[in-house]
């Protein structure tokens, strides 16, 4: 009796498996939205194609897409006439100096595949605002671009500071900086970094208040300040009267570690990169259109 039941079971199972065989063709109509959103392209799209998408395979997403941003927060899209201003500055002051010093292969390997642009900053509940974000080495989000004016050097430096900051995240997410970095001044890392001024941070051997948030941010802030604000700025911070000798040494050690990190991990001459970036900022000309 038991055997019969077993065979029955087996037979029915086999039968039910076979009976599911279905030769219906797959639907031919494409699924909505597969392959991304489409719109009629205009001069901005063509400019991006020519300058970044074709030569570097970098996509610029300037049209609003809430799912690329923090969709629980209230942000607004970028103004169309800001897009080329921003992207051109990014190309001239971030991409080309890296390409010049580190080479095309480096840029094509490590450059983020996508920039997402938005007009406003992202407002945190603690009163701080977010100006940019790097995600998984693949995407950089740039915010508060509607106010950007390339004729103003401070604005240019602020934007490029964000990009160099985020790109340095991508670099250390690929190969970590030396562990020693984390132990240079761990006592000053704090989640409430925004209660400090840059001057407070300088006395502690950190280049900015935000560098106090953790070792990763400290590393990328230091890289970005060295590149965008230049050696003179960095040296002036070290030379400040109220910066104690111990902190001055930390600053010098950090710069040394950055130079070694870029040379050993990425074969990049950091001093040459710094010079190229400074030259690009000082000679920057915005496109006239």
């Amino acid at each position, binding site marked *: 009796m038991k055997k019969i039941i077993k065979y029955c079971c087996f037979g029915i199972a086999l039968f039910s498996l076979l009976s599911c065989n279905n030769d219906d063709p797959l639907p031919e109509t494409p699924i909505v939205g597969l392959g991304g959103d489409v719109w009629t392209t205009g001069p901005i799209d063509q400019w991006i194609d020519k300058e970044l998408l074709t030569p570097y395979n970098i996509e610029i997403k300037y049209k609003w897409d809430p799912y690329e941003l923090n969709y629980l927060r209230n942000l607004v899209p970028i103004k169309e006439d800001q897009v080329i201003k921003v992207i051109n500055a990014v190309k001239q002051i971030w991409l080309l100096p890296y390409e010049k010093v580190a080479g095309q292969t480096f840029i094509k390997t490590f450059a983020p595949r996508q920039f997402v642009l938005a*007009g406003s900053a992202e407002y945190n509940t603690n009163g701080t605002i977010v100006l940019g974000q790097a995600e998984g080495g693949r995407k950089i989000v740039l915010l508060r671009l509607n106010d950007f004016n390339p004729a103003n050097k401070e604005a240019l430096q602020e934007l490029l500071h964000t990009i160099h900051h985020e790109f340095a995240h991508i670099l250390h997410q690929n190969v970590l900086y030396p562990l020693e970095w984390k132990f240079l001044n761990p006592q000053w890392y704090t989640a409430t970094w925004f209660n400090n001024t840059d001057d407070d941070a300088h006395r502690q051997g950190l280049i900015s208040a935000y560098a106090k948030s953790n070792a990763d941010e400290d590393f990328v802030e230091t890289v970005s300040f060295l590149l965008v604000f230049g050696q003179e700025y960095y040296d002036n911070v070290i030379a400040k009267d109220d910066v104690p000798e111990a902190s001055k040494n930390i600053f010098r050690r950090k710069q040394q570690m950055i130079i070694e990190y870029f040379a050993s991990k990425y074969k990049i001459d950091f001093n040459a990169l710094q010079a190229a970036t400074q030259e690009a900022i000082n000679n920057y000309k915005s496109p006239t259109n």
Partner: protein
Amino acid sequence: MKIIMKNKIAIPGILLSGLLLLGISSCSKDDFKGERPDQKLTAALESYSILLTEAPHGWKAHLFTGSVGGYGFWFEFNKENKVSMFADFRTESGNQAAQSSYRLKATLLPALYFDTYSYLHELADPDNRVNGGTAGWGLLSDFEFSFREVKGDTILLTGNLNNSKLQLVKASAAEKAAYQRGNLNALRADATRFFQTSSFLFLKDNANTVYSVNMNISQKTVAFNYSVGQTMETALLGFAFSGENDLILSEPFIKGGIHIDRFIRTEVAGAPVIKAALAKETMEIQKTENPLFPFFLMWGSSYQLIRVPIETTSQGNKSDFDLRRTAALTAMRALLRAGTTFPEMRIAINKSEKLVVVNQIIRQTPYSFNANFAFSYTEQDNAIKLKYEGPMDGNSTVIEPGFKPIIDGLTDGAMEFDFDLTTPQLRAFGQSKSLTNFRFVGLIN
């Protein structure tokens, strides 16, 4: 033992019947005959796209935000994903069409995205210098909307983030022409002239019940006040300038014998006059020189602020206030850099929190800063007794020592607030019950 045996048989029995069922059901060859959901969505997006782009004269748009205010737009969508618009909140937005982009996107519901920045986004901008709203949230507005309903010539949409309501109504050729010649600005100017008067405006129904009408043109709200027994109630609605002559309400105001959904500009003896209306059926807005309700009852709902000049005296001020005002001015100037001025203090009330906030405006051209001082209060026979709670921000902390003479005056005895009807402009005064000569007067809005 027997019971256990039974169980042993019962289990294969259940299995068997389960498998049988599976076998039978899995053999069902009834193919799904309907349309796939993504096909339906594609069709819906296409139909909305055709609807939007084929309106021959564009769309009148009425947007009602989470901060109550209403905003009027005109949109014209083309097939190249571009949208032209006018908006009713600035001179430039009323007479210069701005072009940006839009697209339709399949999200939970078919959605309309205004995907690059234009006038519409100013309302939602988290930078509150743009719109005077809350930092991080602006005026609780939207620029991504889900389609909810299409009814005749009207499309109703809802904002995806802040749930604001957007109404699109097909415009006529005459309306399009009006928008293009800057009619939004003209309409706003006429409404401003009509509503900014020292008289008190009201609607009266057949039962002679009075509903006061208070327009706030800059915040785009209208408040209706009316008595219910011994208490006063307020209905606060948004309104949007629309088409040739309309001010559309966020929802109809229906109370007693009143049923209106808009205000309309008409002409009486060659001069523009605003009337209340339900569609085309109009109702006169009446005027009286006497307040309909005491100022204190309407403060915080119909009227937000008393704006008291600080750099200059104002008609109706008394000596003690002016002495304290000039003393405070001298002291505050000494605290900030040369050239700083202190144009006015704005007094606001929050009745649910029992708070009065005095905002001293600090002007350092081209910027203005707020310095907010908080007072709690208790009500004492037609007056309020203020208690100083302290500065609310960094600016007020800095100027507090200089502002002290005014704080002391405000907290000395109970303060009485009411309408001042001595000038053609609508103003209110504050009078100390203990310091006879501590009296100031300011514009209301």
